[in-house]
């Protein structure tokens, strides 16, 4: 692969790896290579007045009210997949964690652990994607770090992001507000990210356009919160998927949650792929979907707002909270009731 322009700027002198535009251990030693990488690669993409000061810490303007903070690490393999890449995930994941907590995400930190030998052009594609996703979400990366580890000590590239956001006055989301009678809403089709990753990782040529749904949800969610006092809780449906999130809600609130299988939005493509792979779409990861618990008298209003937005256009009401003791029940289209549990390892055959 020919070295990128940026790659060639970063290397002060020639070496094979440098010629090939690869990351060296020296890019993480804090010396001139590190500086070159930061100034020539990271800065152009993340530039903002707080980051550009190059202080040991970013000093943020004062914010009134409550703050929300979250952190998440991203180790996805492969780095690039239909519908996204590790960079886009690293922004969306943290932004969405803040958004479903009711916060307006504002500032992010980004920390990179890079395996020696990663192509600089690859790193640049990831950073460019992060930058683009930041603009989409309206957030800024205000602090960062880069480390390089020897070959084999990490898998190409790991990213950690932390995020800060502020909560508008009066926002009160949480398990404590959930009551029997509340409805369960999901913002769109489930399982798309999980299937896209598996397909890309294993080179599966699946029918239909199976792309990750990764997207920042803060724009959509900011339209809901001021309108709906009956919005009680949101969860983003990443690792463990919808099934895990809904079971955690039931356990935390000591209620039972009843779901209608027929109402669960799953695209025919995801359904077919999951069937042949032997995977349950309810437990596949999503990166642009959330679950909401809403008071019944505001459920229609919630759906109306969601349906008016591209990221919520296939939102559905699919279940209800009832008195109980932490169980999740799925009424299947065939008429039986299946109990959903937390995922425990890989599903093993049970049919005789």
């Amino acid at each position, binding site marked *: 692969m020919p070295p990128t322009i940026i790659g060639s700027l970063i290397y002060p002198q020639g070496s094979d790896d440098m010629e090939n535009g690869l990351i060296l251990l020296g890019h993480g030693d804090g010396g001139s290579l590190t500086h070159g990488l930061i100034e020539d690669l990271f800065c152009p993409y993340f530039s903002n007045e707080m980051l550009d000061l190059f202080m040991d810490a970013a000093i943020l303007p004062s914010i009134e009210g409550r703050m929300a903070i979250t952190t998440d690490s991203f180790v996805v393999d492969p780095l690039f997949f239909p519908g996204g890449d590790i960079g886009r995930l690293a922004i969306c994941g943290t932004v969405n964690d803040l958004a479903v907590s009711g916060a307006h995400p504002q500032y992010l930190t980004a920390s990179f652990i890079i395996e020696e030998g990663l192509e600089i052009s690859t790193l640049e594609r990831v950073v460019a994607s992060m930058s683009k996703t930041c603009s989409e979400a309206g957030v800024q990366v205000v602090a960062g770090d880069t480390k390089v580890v020897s070959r084999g000590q990490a898998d190409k590239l790991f990213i950690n992001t932390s995020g800060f956001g502020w909560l508008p006055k009066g926002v009160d989301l949480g398990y404590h507000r959930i009551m029997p009678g509340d409805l369960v809403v999901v913002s769109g089709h489930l399982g798309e990210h999980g299937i896209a990753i598996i397909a890309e990782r294993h080179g*599966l*040529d699946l029918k239909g356009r199976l792309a990750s749904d990764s997207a920042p949800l803060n724009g959509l969610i900011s339209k809901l919160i001021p309108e709906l006092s009956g919005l009680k809780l949101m969860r983003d449906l990443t690792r463990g998927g919808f099934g895990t999130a809904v079971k955690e809600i039931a356990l935390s609130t000591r209620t039972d949650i009843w779901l209608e299988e027929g109402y669960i939005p799953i695209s025919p493509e995801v359904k077919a792929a999951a069937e042949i792979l032997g*995977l349950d779409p309810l437990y596949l990861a999503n990166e642009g979907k959330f679950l909401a618990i809403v008071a019944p008298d505001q459920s229609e209003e919630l759906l109306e707002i969601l349906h008016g937005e591209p990221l919520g256009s296939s939102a559905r009401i699919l279940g209800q909270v009832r008195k109980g003791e932490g169980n999740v029940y799925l009424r*299947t289209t*065939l*008429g*039986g009731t299946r109990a959903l549990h937390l995922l425990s390892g890989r599903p*093993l*055959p049970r049919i005789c």
Partner: protein
Amino acid sequence: MEDRLPRIRLVDKYGDIIAQDDWLSRASRALNQGHILAVKGIGGFHLTCDARNREAVSELRRRKRRPAKPFAIMCRDIVTVKSLCHIAPEEMEYLVSPPAPIVLLRTREGHALPKEIAPGMGTLGIMMPYTQLHRLLLENGPPIQVMTSGNVNGMPLVKDNQEALDVLGHVADYFLLHDDHIGFRCDDSLLSVVNGKGLFIRRSRGYHHHAIEVPVDPGSPVTLGVGGDMKNTFSLIVEGRAHLSQHIGSLEYVEGQRVMEEGILHLCDTLGVRPMIVTSDLHPGYNSYRIADGLAERFGALRHRGVQHHHAHMASCMAENGVDGDAIGIILDGTGYGPDGRMRGFEIMTGGYHGFTRGYHLAYVPLPGGDGAIRRPWVTAVAYLITFLGQEGRKIAFRLFPGRGYELELVDRILSQGINAPLASSCGRIFDAVSALLGLCLENTYEGQAAVTLGDLMPWSASREALDPYPFDFNGPIIDPTGMLVAICDDIDRGTGLSIITKRFHHTIIRMVVDAAERVRESKGLSNAVLSGGTWQNPYLYLTTGHILKERGFKVLTHGLLPPGDGSLALGQAVVALKDI
């Protein structure tokens, strides 16, 4: 037997009364006109229609979403049975016995019923009327009626009037109701008669009340085995006697799980006991495993860690035969969890109640998509071809399953990448694979369809001729089927007849287990051979293997009181746990 006739009414699916005094003539007329009725019995509802009416039978299949699983039928009298099936004196005895089980009978060529009753099968499941209501319906309505379980697939039998209207409202046109309360659901028992003896497929109504003596100390603690997740039964050992539940069936759904738990509590109350030990299968994904945890807590009982599936099968067969000590287990079935996390189902093992050692097993094959491959035997066939025949197998797969190119590529990829493809060494799966290779059954619409369809091609008697098995190899403890797979594919290419391939396949399985048993006998000096596991419901395999083992000097122990399938797990679990404590 119930001879008192409760007050009966015929209602429509909204519960509106159609007829009371003249219910019989109205119901008979509806049946004669091809309508489907839900009839309240003594253990739950049946769905019934005129078995001679192809359209009615097909409509019932469509509404019940049951495309192929055979329907049981009820006949007015023995003459009618004889017009449909061959019937031996021992079969007759079971048919007219007070428990009135469904008896599987070989059909006569050209009998009068539509093939939709039991598609692709050379057998019919027949029972005689066992209540006054049945007798009246069969005498006044059609003389042969479908009499199938009134339930939704995988769910418990419907037993209450309102429940019937709610659940079966989209299946039945009319309902025959009465106000006698059904306390506990009880499915009809199902058996075949092989070698003059009943071989249970489902032991339930008419049989489950009989406790059986088992070889344990009468003073030992009350022990509960909760059974497995499919064809569930549970078992309670009290004072040296095992009380076995009726067929509970599938525990896939919460509804089935509740019936099972209620049944356990009811049996404990009836016997006035409380289990001190509770055990289950080892499969961590079984619902019964979770239920056992809960019950142990509830009873304040010791939660025994669980009994390996095939160990439970073996122990159950030994217990019902009243034997103790060590034996050779020849356990063939579909899926049993191994403590190593792999699936087993082709086990030649040694041991007794106290424990077991694996002897020989069939080579493992990855199952792409796990349960998905079990529902689609053609996927299992592809897995066998690619795993054992490599590139050549891949070519054969594309040739044998044209039109599945897209899925086949995916399966190939899943196999090569090892994505969610748990390993299985299973007799059920190799039956599935061969059934699919022969084009008999590519996709199961009911559990075991591919294997049952293949087994149904064989006679119900022991082979009296010398076996002509396909080649296979012993590779240490592993039985390698490569030679057989190559030969079957060659035979398919050459256009060898289905019946010849099927017979040689059966002979290969028989030879595999007999050879393995002889090897174990040589090394361990044991000569009791225990046959258990669902595969032994295949009469030809069962009879021929038994015959050869006896010829070779083995003492053969088989199930007589319990079904060889997973319905026998609970007893084995309870005995093993009790002896383990």
